[in-house]
């Protein structure tokens, strides 16, 4: 049963954050293509928001490890 739990935890969280990161990167790329002079500013904000989205997946990764080791 733990196999399923761990697999689904990672799969669903990766699904959500992949969509979010894709949308964020799309927006940033469009902005950079339209205004190349603002690219430095956009890149910083993009990295920041990507890190926030990434952390939600990592939370579920930690939960998955906790399930795996049966703590």
């Amino acid at each position: 049963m733990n196999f399923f739990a761990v697999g689904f935890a990672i799969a669903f969280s990766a699904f959500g954050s992949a969509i979010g990161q894709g949308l964020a990167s799309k927006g940033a790329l469009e902005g950079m293509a339209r205004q190349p002079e603002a690219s430095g500013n956009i890149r910083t904000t993009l990295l920041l928001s990507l890190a926030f989205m990434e952390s939600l997946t990592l939370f579920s990764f930690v939960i998955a490890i906790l399930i795996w080791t049966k703590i």
Partner: protein
Amino acid sequence: MLANLQKLNNVLDNVKPRHIFSVGGFDISSTVITTWCLMVLAIVAILFLTRDLKVRPTSKRQLVLEYFVSFIDNIMEDTGGKEAKRYTPLVGGFFLSILILNLAWFIPFFRPPTMDYNLTFALGIMVFFISQTLGIYHRGIKNYFKKFIYPTPILLPINILEEFIKPVSLSLRLFGNMFADEMLVVIIGILVPLVLPVPIQLLGLLTAGIQAFVFSLLLAVYIGEAMGVEE
């Protein structure tokens, strides 16, 4: 193949920090020993790099140092205005130490100390106290508490909770990224021990840099927030 799959069962034992010895009830694990070694390395490297600096840089090494300092300076100016530049040494120190700790992976027989949640949580607690202290110092005690009931007093519990979640998410992010990277390489190394783990470990170079950058960027954002730039 079957023996390899057997190894997968206790893959977590491979990446746990090892207990070396105890001093008066405190366990000294491999994380601490690695950090000490890296501290010696970093101190020697920095002493070497900052020897005889000149006003007009003539050596390449001083140019690299000045590029790094202005890089952190720019981050601070973007997030906290001109006044936040006085905290450049603090944020730069965090950046360099996390980068060095992450890159310890590429020294043979070392594992990155940031893979241990104890270390990253200690960094998170430091960030928590830094942002609270700077908030009180720059805004005064009255304005500091006013921040918690900023739009309406109804948001008080959420605002307080947010302050405590910040260091936890910051440390979990650093730990999770490094841990996931190492885990991936260990598992691939067990399944396909030939050639394939190398490019995946090289990907860790990217992760190490980005995580150090994100950590210091968020620290800069928290410092800017504590100094009250948003109003």
